[in-house]
């Protein structure tokens, strides 16, 4: 194998699994250390810069970082229940305890740059674009059909998961920079908008249409059948305050979980979720399923809805066909009827949460924006530019339903494109990240990070007493970590951004690092092809998605090969190295956001 080029920004970035997995590439270990040090405000600002909504995401993020977290892998076969660091909930700790950080937020300059940007929809994608562009002097106008900004954050996420004050605060931080918000202003025509004097238009309208189920009885019983996201939105704005005692929620995604838990708080005492697939194949995040189960909501699986039943023009129940999963000849899962009799469930209301769709009735098909066969706009995956160069898409509006953190990431990228576009530059020339690698050595065996690996298991977030929690839609269920628990949980972080950096000329091949490494990551051996090498390391490196760190040839003609997979970043290799050939260096990667740094350096 060729020696590893550690100067390439991606190499060490991949080692920081959480940051690599995060669409916005938030420097997770960096802010977790700040939380451990009690620097909540600083931790919040690291987050705010990167993901704009730390308080909101700290409660609702889909957390792609957590399944990626190295802690989950190193606890495997070491602990009974291997689990990642509670990254998401630590983010909330920073938001809850930050104090007043308003002085650190940017303000739009009094002197504008003369460019006007329209953002359609006031959800996370649009607000991110606005936050990135307003401080640069752009005049940003955000339009939304609802009177208040926030988009799906406000309309679809129930209050018991995300209190309104948190939304108001973080949406406010963006608008207070100097962004014009026009609430209750629905855009009905893209053509008309393009005719106005906007230099660029950003479409962040989400995936606003809930899928319906066209089954027998749908029309007749329609009064008690509701589309999940519309219903959640009505609850959110106070238009709906009650639901029947017996509720069936159809669908296995996170919206279904929000629907069933909301029903429990609006009078539903017998609420059940019914899904077509198996429990394990459900789209909902495992923790959301757990939360629903915790509130006594059963999830029945392998039941395909067949008909809505009604008596005297009123919904009375639903019939389901029992199915099982079989693999077809091509190895794909298919649901086939088991032949058992249909199952019938009585109910007063049904919530349909079987998916969301994009919908662009307000974009005229002759507005110069190309759409594909499925009705989605043709959008460049990197620049987010549509076929009409003045128009950019982001969030769910660009590539279909995802989640908040993806919308934020899209917003950052679209903002770069808009900034470059307005400066007459090629939007396809993208900026590199800011990368920094600094030794953490403080003394012979002292580091500026805590390298003593905590043996704690994941700490559980304390919950509000269930009797109180189920009484009101507005009582937040999770209480969040207190300072002590937050510290203990933060200490579980392995500091994967503190990298093991090897300098071959200094190595005397004494084996001290090999002997001390608790995870058997390091091997000195003859070089070979990757597949061969992976098989003959101190511990075979079977996780192919994790790189091997290969050194130049050493004095004895061997190489040093380190498997990055389960390294604890404990720094013992560097502590036991007599010559300083190993050093622990903090890798900091900050994604470059829109601004002069992204433009060509003329």
């Amino acid at each position, binding site marked *: 194998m060729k020696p590893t080029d550690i100067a390439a920004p991606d190499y060490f970035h991949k080692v920081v699994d959480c940051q690599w997995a995060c669409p916005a590439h938030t420097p997770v270990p960096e802010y977790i250390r700040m939380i451990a040090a009690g620097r909540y405000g600083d931790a919040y600002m690291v987050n705010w810069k990167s993901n704009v909504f730390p308080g909101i995401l700290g409660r609702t993020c889909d957390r792609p970082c957590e399944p990626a977290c190295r802690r989950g892998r190193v606890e495997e*076969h070491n602990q009974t229940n291997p689990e990642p660091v509670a990254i998401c909930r630590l983010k909330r700790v920073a938001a809850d305890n930050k104090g007043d950080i308003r002085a650190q937020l940017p303000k739009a300059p009094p002197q504008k740059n003369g460019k006007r940007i329209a953002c359609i929809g006031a959800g996370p994608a649009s607000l991110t674009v606005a936050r990135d562009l307003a401080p640069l002097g752009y005049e940003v106008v955000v339009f939304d059909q609802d009177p208040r900004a926030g988009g799906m954050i406000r309309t679809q996420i129930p209050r018991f998961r995300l209190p309104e004050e948190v939304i108001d605060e973080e949406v406010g931080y963006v608008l207070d920079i100097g962004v014009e918000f026009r609430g209750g202003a629905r855009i009905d025509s893209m053509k008309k908008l393009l005719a106005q004097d906007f230099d660029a238009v950003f479409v962040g309208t989400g995936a606003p249409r809930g899928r319906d189920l066209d089954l027998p009885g749908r029309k007749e019983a329609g009064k008690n059948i509701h589309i999940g996201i519309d219903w959640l939105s009505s609850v959110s704005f106070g238009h709906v305050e009650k639901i029947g005692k017996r509720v069936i929620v159809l669908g296995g995604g996170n919206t279904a979980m929000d629907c069933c838990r909301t029903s429990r708080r609006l009078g539903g005492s017998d609420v059940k979720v019914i899904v077509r697939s198996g429990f394990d194949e459900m789209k909902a995040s495992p923790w959301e399923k757990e939360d629903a189960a915790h509130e006594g909501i059963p999830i029945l699986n392998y039941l395909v809805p067949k008909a809505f039943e009604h008596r005297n023009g009123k919904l009375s129940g639903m019939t389901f066909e029992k199915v099982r999963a079989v693999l077809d000849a091509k190895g794909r899962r298919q649901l086939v009827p088991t032949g058992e009799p249909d199952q019938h469930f009585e109910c007063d209301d049904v919530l349909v949460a079987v998916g969301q769709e994009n919908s662009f009735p307000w974009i005229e098909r002759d507005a110069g924006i190309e759409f594909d066969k499925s009705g989605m706009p043709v959008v460049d995956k990197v620049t987010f530019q549509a076929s009409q160069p003045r128009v950019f898409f982001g969030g769910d509006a660009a590539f279909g339903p995802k989640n908040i953190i993806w919308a934020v990431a899209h917003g950052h990228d679209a903002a770069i494109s808009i900034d470059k576009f307005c400066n007459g530059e090629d939007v396809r020339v993208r900026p590199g990240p800011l990368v920094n690698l600094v030794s953490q050595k403080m003394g012979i065996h002292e580091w500026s990070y805590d390298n003593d690996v905590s043996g704690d298991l994941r700490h559980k977030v304390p919950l509000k007493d269930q009797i109180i929690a189920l009484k009101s839609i507005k009582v937040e269920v999770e209480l969040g970590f207190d300072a002590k628990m937050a510290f203990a949980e933060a200490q579980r972080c392995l500091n994967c951004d503190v990298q093991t950096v090897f300098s071959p000329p200094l190595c*005397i091949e004494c*084996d001290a690092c090999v*002997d001390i490494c608790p*995870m058997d990551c390091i091997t000195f051996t003859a070089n070979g092809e990757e597949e061969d090498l992976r098989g003959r390391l101190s511990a075979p490196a079977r996780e192919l998605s994790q790189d091997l760190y290969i050194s130049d040839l050493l004095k004895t003609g061997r190489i040093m090969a380190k498997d990055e997979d389960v390294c604890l970043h*404990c720094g013992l290799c560097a502590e036991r190295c*007599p010559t300083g050939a190993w050093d622990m260096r903090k890798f900091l990667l900050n994604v470059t956001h829109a601004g002069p740094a992204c433009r060509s350096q003329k």
Partner: protein
Amino acid sequence: MTYISKPKLHHPQLPANKLGFTRRDYEGAISTLCAGCGHDSISAAIIQACFELDLPPHRIAKLSGIGCSSKTPTYFLSSSHGFNSVHGRMPSVLTGANLANRELIYLGVSGDGDSASIGLGQFAHSLRRGVNMVYIVENNGVYGLTKGQFSATSDRGSKSKKGAVNTDTAIDMVLLAMELGATYVARSFSGDKAQLVPLIKGAILHRGAAFIDCISPCVAFNNHSGSTKSFDYVREHNEAVNQLDVMMPRETITADYAPGQVEEITQHDGSVLKLRKLAAEYDVHDRIAAMNYLQGRKAAGEIVTGVLHVDPEPEDLHAHLGTVASPFNKLGEKDLCPGGGALEKFNAAYR
């Protein structure tokens, strides 16, 4: 010194041996020796050897004297018996322990100061008596704990870190051990675990006095260009006469060797030492020829390593003395204190 303890977490795929222990279960406390010390590599090799031999840790006794080397038993086999004796007196304590309980595996860990200077007499007599033990000398040719004076194994003409030249003749512990009748003699290098681990395994399985001289560079005081015990010097002058593979009794032998290149030595317990010859003329059974060979290579400036002498049918101290087959702790009070009558009888035999 490292202040944190080694994390308990281990590799998710870490294998377990027949007893269900992982290699990590044979470790001890984190080392307080200088970073990079060769002794730590020897500790790691002992851990590996005991793990591979499926040894129950509570059946091992590790004994040591004084010095950097003698600190190391703290850093391996934390579940085994241990005794840290007076300077140079480890061999006597070990001999006594072995007489009292012949069923334990005895691991004597010592250094060049502890065994070649203050304890030379003790060292000599324990080998001469054929005590069933593994005696490892972690030989760095320097007094590290007292900041780098020459030891009794420093080669004449080698230099100290400060530049002083050694004028005294070095004691060659391997030649001494062979002269004194050790029945398993080997030399190795801390920087070559592939060689060292099988040598330790072979020594543990040997039922007699096994001696290993392990050159172990002192990174703090004896790893400079004038040293003959530095990593670089040993790597340049290392002449291995053979490569050992240890096969347990009933273990299927799968390794493929060219004919005539491998010598199999079956030990008393049925274990097989497979010696892949690297120096064709070297015969591990012929003690006198081996000693001559070693003298010759030594004069040529080479460091000969590998298994240097084995007697597959050794006789140990218990056989010499005709002692009782059980350890004392398994004998009843009657057997241990047979009473005045028995003493009378015993004394009468000498009258």
